[in-house]
C-alpha cells in the first residue's frame, strides 16, 4: 500500500551528549579482558594440565630408556628427552591457542568481543600476548623440571650434564620456548580457521606435518627439514647441534618465524572478513 517510504513526522531534540571518556581503549584494557576470559574457562586448566603433567613423566621414561641403552653405541644427546617429551604438550598448547578464537567464533561471542573492541588486530595481539605469556612460563617450568628429572636419571649412568655447562641453560630455555611457539601458532590458526575441530587439525598439521621432510632423499631431507619447526626445535635445544642443519641461532630464527608468519596471516585476514 505504501511502496514509497514515508519520512518521519517529527524530529526530536538532540541526544544527551555521550558520556564516553575520550581516552581510547588502552593495551592494558584489552589484556585485562583477555586475561579474564582466559582464566574463567575450564578448558584452559585442562590443556595446561596436560601440557605440564605429560612431559615431565614422559621425559623420565625417555631418559630411562636412554640410560638403559647398551653401552658402546652413540652417546645420546642428554637434552633430547626434554624435547621429545613435549610431543603431547605441544598439541595441548596448540589446542589452547586455537580455542582462544574458535570458542568465540563457534558461539558467536566474537561479535560481542569485536563490538567492544573494533580494532581487531589489537584483540589478536591481546589474545596472543595472554596465551603466549602463560605458555612461555608453563613451558619454562616444564623444561627445567624435565631437565632436572632427566639428569637425575641419566647421571646415575654417567650420561647426564649439569646446568652450569656452557650451552645447557640456553638449550633448556629454548625447549620451554617451543610450547609458546606452538600456542601462538594455535592462536593464529584459530583466528584464520575459526572452527575448533578444523583449527586443531590445521594447527597439528602445521606443527607436525612438515616433519615428513625427513622422509625425503638426502641431502633434501636436511635441506628442507631445517626449515621445519621440529627440526629447528631439535637444533636449538640440543647440546650437540647437527652440522647439516642451520646453526642454533639460525634455527631459533626459523622457530620464531613460524608463529610470526602465522600471526601475520591472521592479522591480514582478521580485518577483512565479516564475522
Amino acid at each position, binding site marked *: *500500500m*505504501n511502496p514509497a*517510504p*514515508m*519520512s*518521519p*513526522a*517529527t*524530529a*526530536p*531534540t*538532540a*541526544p*544527551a*551528549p*555521550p*558520556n*564516553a*571518556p*575520550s*581516552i*581510547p*581503549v*588502552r593495551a592494558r*584494557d*584489552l589484556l*585485562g*579482558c*583477555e586475561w*579474564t*576470559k582466559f582464566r*574463567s*574457562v*575450564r*578448558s584452559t586448566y585442562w590443556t595446561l594440565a596436560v601440557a605440564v603433567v605429560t612431559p615431565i613423566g614422559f621425559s623420565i621414561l625417555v631418559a630411562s630408556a636412554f640410560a638403559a641403552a647398551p653401552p658402546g653405541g652413540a652417546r645420546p644427546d642428554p637434552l633430547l628427552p626434554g624435547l621429545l617429551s613435549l610431543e603431547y604438550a605441544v598439541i595441548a598448547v596448540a589446542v589452547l591457542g586455537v580455542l582462544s578464537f574458535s*570458542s*568465540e567464533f563457534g*558461539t*558467536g*561471542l566474537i*561479535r*560481542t*568481543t*569485536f*563490538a*567492544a*573492541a*573494533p*580494532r581487531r588486530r589489537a584483540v589478536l595481539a591481546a589474545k596472543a600476548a595472554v596465551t603466549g605469556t602463560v605458555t612461555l612460563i608453563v613451558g619454562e617450568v616444564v623444561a627445567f623440571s624435565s631437565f632436572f628429572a632427566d639428569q637425575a636419571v641419566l647421571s646415575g649412568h654417567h650420561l647426564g650434564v649439569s646446568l652450569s655447562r656452557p650451552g645447557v641453560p640456553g638449550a633448556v630455555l629454548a625447549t620451554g620456548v617451543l610450547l609458546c611457539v606452538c600456542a601462538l601458532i594455535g592462536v593464529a590458526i584459530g583466528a584464520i580457521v575459526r572452527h575448533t575441530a578444523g583449527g586443531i587439525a590445521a594447527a597439528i598439521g602445521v606443527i607436525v606435518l612438515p616433519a615428513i621432510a625427513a622422509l625425503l632423499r638426502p641431502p633434501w631431507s636436511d635441506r628442507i627439514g631445517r626449515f621445519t619447526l621440529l627440526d629447528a626445535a631439535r637444533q636449538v635445544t640440543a647440546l650437540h647441534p647437527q652440522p647439516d642443519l642451520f646453526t642454533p641461532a639460525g634455527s631459533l630464527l626459523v622457530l620464531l618465524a613460524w608463529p610470526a608468519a602465522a600471526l601475520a596471516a591472521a592479522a591480514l585476514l582478521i580485518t577483512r572478513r*565479516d*564475522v
Partner: protein
Amino acid sequence: MIELDRLSKRFGSVTALDDLSFTVRPGHVTGFLGPNGAGKTTTMKIILGLDAPTAGTALVNGRRYDRLVRPLYQVGSLLDATALHGGRTARLHLASLAQSNGIGRRRVAEVLALTGMEAVADRRVNGYSLGMKQRLGLAVAMLGDPPVLMLDEPVNGLDTEGIGWIRQFFKALAAEGRTVLVSSHLMSEMALSADHLIVIGRGKLLADMPTAQLIAANARHDVLLRSPRTAELTGLLTARGATVTPQPDGALVVTGLDAAAIGDLAAGHGIALHALVPRQASLEDAYLDLTGESVDYHGTPVAAPGPVTEGTPNPMSTAR
C-alpha cells in the same frame, strides 16, 4: 542517533540490503521490523562494524563504529543472547567486557542488579534459560550506560513477565533521551513497545514513520451494522457518500462514515439498529499488506484470513 546512508550489502549474488537509508532518533523506542531474512540482523551487524557494507555508510553518533572511542560507552548492543561461552559465569563474562573498555567492577555489579541477575551471577551460563541469557545480554548492553541501544529480537525467549519488564525498560531508556532500536519480526510486539517503526523487506525500506501513523495509513476502518431496515438504510448511507457492502448474513459493512454519524443518521430517520460495531484492521494485517510482496518464504494459508476483525477483543487490534 544512528544514520544509515544508502547502505547495500551483497553476499555473492544475493542482495541482502538494497540502498537502505534511515535515521534512528533519540527519545523514542524505534521498532525495526521485517520478515525473517529481510536484512535486520545484517543491518545491525554493519552498524556495529562486524560486516562490511558493499556500499554506503552507517554512522553512530556521527562516526563510523570502528572510529568510536570506547564503543561500549556509546552503543550498547545485543545481537544474539546465546552467544556466550557456556563455561563462564555471568559475572566474569561481564567483567571481561567491562575491562575491554576500561569500565570498573562496580558497574558490573550495577548492571547485574539492573537486570535482576545478581542471584545467578556466579553460575556458569550453561545452565541459564534463554530468558536469563537475554537479561545477561541486556546487562552487557548497559555496561557503558550508552546513549544508543540496539537489540536484535530481545523479546525472544522471555516469558510474559519478562516481556512486560523489557518493554518498560526500553520505554524508560527512551524517556531518558536515549536512542533505542529494537528489531522484531512480530508486528504485534512492536505495536506495544515501539512508538516509531522502520519496516524493511528484502533489504529495502518499506516504511519509516510513527507507529500510529503507520497503522492509520495501512489499516482499514469500517463499521459493521445490523438493522431490520437494511434496504432503506443502504439508500441513506449511499446518499451520504458511504460505501455499503451487504454481507451474506444480512449485515452491512460501511466505509466512509464513522459509527457516530451512522447512528445519528439512523436515529434521525427512526431506523432501529441492532448492531453498530466500529472495526479496525489489526496491525498484523497492516504489516502483512506492507511486507506481503517481500516475504521470502511463503507458507500455504490454512484458511484465508478475514481482512478485518470484529470488535475490540483482539489484542492485536490497535488502540493507540
